[in-house]
């Protein structure tokens, strides 16, 4: 049943990329346990505006866990305390009455803060642009059922393809590594017959771009997979490493 609870919020406020930024504390009362976490921030923002203060800026869009836009580190954990969900799917019934909740942006060199909790994740787009696709033009492709794919492989590829590109993996990693994100795409396409043609150049190009963006190295701690709202498995990092080494040792980049 619905209850009302009180909280103390410690939220990161930063006017722009050049501002040093810092935590600001806001008490917030009478929050319904049925509210989503972002609805709780909406309530705070309405109060701030009424008081003549600028609202907390944050990224969000679909509010159903699929667009990958919301991005808050809550009490030190990307997307908050619960597993396998995004910030927007978190509800206030998960927070006890009277607790203090700390909210920060993703923190990584390759994700600079734009304002408050909003960060720039275009580095992810550039990694996909480097090779995260099958090079086919519109039209002139074979009938869909001319490419049979074993169900097991299709399902495994799907598991990798569910990545929403939110960046929680990077935010959780002590090295701000993007290996889980990059491996999900490399792995999806390496498993499927459509993607095999370009597997070598894809692995090389995407990893080169990843390094250029300033993401850190992987030390296999697995924090990325633990916070991933789509539970992308570390297996994909293993497969990416294999793809990469195979490419480096055997293939000639065309």
């Amino acid at each position: 049943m619905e209850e009302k609870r009180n909280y103390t919020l410690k939220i990161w406020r930063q006017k722009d990329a050049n501002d040093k930024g810092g935590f600001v504390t806001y008490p917030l009362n009478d929050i319904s346990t049925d509210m989503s976490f972002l609805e709780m921030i909406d309530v705070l923002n309405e109060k701030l505006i009424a008081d003549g203060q600028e609202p907390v800026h944050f990224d969000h869009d679909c509010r159903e866990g699929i667009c990958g836009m919301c991005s808050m580190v809550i009490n030190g954990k990307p997307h908050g305390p619960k597993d396998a969900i995004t910030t927007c799917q978190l509800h206030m019934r998960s927070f006890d009455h009277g607790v203090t909740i700390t909210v920060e942006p993703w923190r990584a060199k390759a994700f600079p803060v734009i304002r408050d909790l909003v960060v720039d994740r275009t580095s992810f787009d550039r990694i996909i642009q480097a090779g995260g696709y099958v090079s086919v033009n519109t039209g002139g492709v074979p009938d869909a059922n001319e490419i049979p794919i074993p169900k097991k492989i299709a399902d495994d590829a799907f598991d990798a393809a569910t990545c929403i590109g939110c960046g929680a993996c990077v935010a959780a990693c002590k090295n701000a590594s993007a290996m889980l994100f990059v491996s999900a795409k490399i792995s999806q396409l390496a498993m499927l017959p459509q993607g095999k043609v370009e597997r070598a150049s894809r692995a090389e190009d995407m990893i080169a771009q990843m390094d250029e963006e300033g993401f850190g190295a992987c030390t296999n701690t697995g924090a990325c997979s633990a916070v991933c709202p789509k539970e992308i498995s570390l297996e994909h990092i293993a497969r990416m490493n294999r793809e990469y080494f195979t490419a480096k040792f055997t293939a000639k980049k065309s």
Partner: protein
Amino acid sequence: MILDAKVPAGDLADKWKNHKFNVKLVNPANKRKYEVIVVGTGLAGASAAASLAELGYNVKAFCFQDSPRRAHSIAAQGGINAAKNYQNDGDSVFRLFYDTIKGGDYRSREANVYRLAEVSVNIIDQCVAQGVPFAREYGGLLANRSFGGAQVSRTFYARGQTGQQLLLGAYSALSRQINTGKVEMHSRKEMLDLVVVDGQARGIIVRDLVTGEISSHSAHAVILATGGYGNVFYLSTNAMGSNVTAAWRAHKKGAFFANPCYTQIHPTCIPVSGTHQSKLTLMSESLRNDGRVWVPKKEGDTRKPKDIPENERDYYLERKYPSFGNLVPRDVASRNAKYACDEGRGVGSTKLAVYLDFADAIKRDGKDTIAAKYGNLFDMYQQITGENPYETPMRIFPAVHYTMGGLWVDYNLMTSVPGLYALGEANFSDHGANRLGASALMQGLADGYFVVPYTIGDYLARMPYDKIGTDHPAFKEAEHQVKEKISQLLSINGSKTVDQFHRELGLIMWDNCGMSRNAEGLKEAKTKIKSLRDDFWQNVKVLGEAGQMNQSIEKAGRVADFLELGELMIDDALDRNESCGGHFREEYQTEEGEAKRNDEQYSYVAAWEYKGKDQAESLHKEQLEFQNVKLTQRSYK
């Protein structure tokens, strides 16, 4: 002015083939001399931008999100239709065409719908070639399922995330073109005006949402793929950022807005829990394949669902529609849920919900089978409501989901402004008064991959290579107006937040222009919206500065446009003295309470022309002609 839909002559089945042959072509070497702006990067926008760039055009793509991959197409769950007939169950292009026309309650254009059905098969081929992981059978071939309102299995799907997988496919194609330099991508930029020079669309004005900078972009043609306007209701299944601004500003620059009152209310959404509610979550209607909808027979029954015996339950869809049962189309399912609640038989604390019960399906197929089909949806439900749907029935209620209306386009998808195109949900073209399940993804990708790449060439081939410079007075004037509007919003410093206005507008629209409408309510709503709009411009509070990221300015501009659109929706609903599809006028119903069309007087597309601030818009009618289907009363009994 007479609206010319430019439908090609000839037999229905040959129109598109002949048209593709008859349109002018731009020779490959000349394509690089043309530039096209694409606004929006959902299924329609991303597929169009990628396909046009592959052909050799220079493309500039814009989205307001931080990445093109975030567009709201990503949230579509159920699937995408295609007339592949892989299941050998009698499907065909004509049957998909027929179902779509009938499902749209005979308020769409035959030729467009036929073309949609025709290219549907190419879409699946294209997506598979891109590596989209559709569901497969053990033999390695593609799986299909049946979907709301269809009696064949023609829906392709990727678990409950079909939209995500299709969008990521289109996003990957777009990314590839960005890499080649053929597409210049601008994310976190919002279109705030269309620039028209000598009657032709020649560019747009955008605001950089990070720096606040206003800039002009010139091109030979402009494509709007900016989605629907469901957020005029405040609460909808749309993403928080989904808005009508690009389409509305284009409307004010001369693009006619068609059938704005056609709104789809989706029957299976999670009910509102309180005033804090910011959006509504859809549960895929595939759930209706196994779930049974019911309410208590008795009014005001407060017992727990498990305490209500079988003979005191009313499975009203199965009772009223024995042949389609729980699978009736969306408008019918939604309206009947409303009736049950209006009769005082709603369930849950708000009494604005009905049950969707899986107990029988779990008994029949086992919990594991149901979990394999709907596990992610059940988890999502539990996450939001705190209730376990394996043990207690889900509570569902209809919510605004899709808008069939949109910018008027001809057969080429060109609006009434030459050089301005509208694709996907942003146009009005294919779904008539009601959209069938798994058709939105189909239309978005059809428009972007397979229609506009052909039709835009016919226009560009007649254009000179020279672009109009952004120093042209038309650009300067438009920039100036955009800046003025922003300073005005910032200078009001009133006492109500943007969200407060938006919420009030949403309630007016939902109560009077939602699942059912009547003339009296509509007239009242019109007055209320007018005064709310006046209040907005005197009393809204928008803080901060223009020259930085300012989410309040973004919202304020969008709500200002919704406040204008809402009134047009009301006008359109008032004009249409009949019921059809999602537009249900209480005055016009059959004895059994079903929508009663008036084909003699209302078989037209209502295309509205903007006439200036505070002027009534003028109505242009495009008569719909049906030569290949017989108009019948839609019956799902």
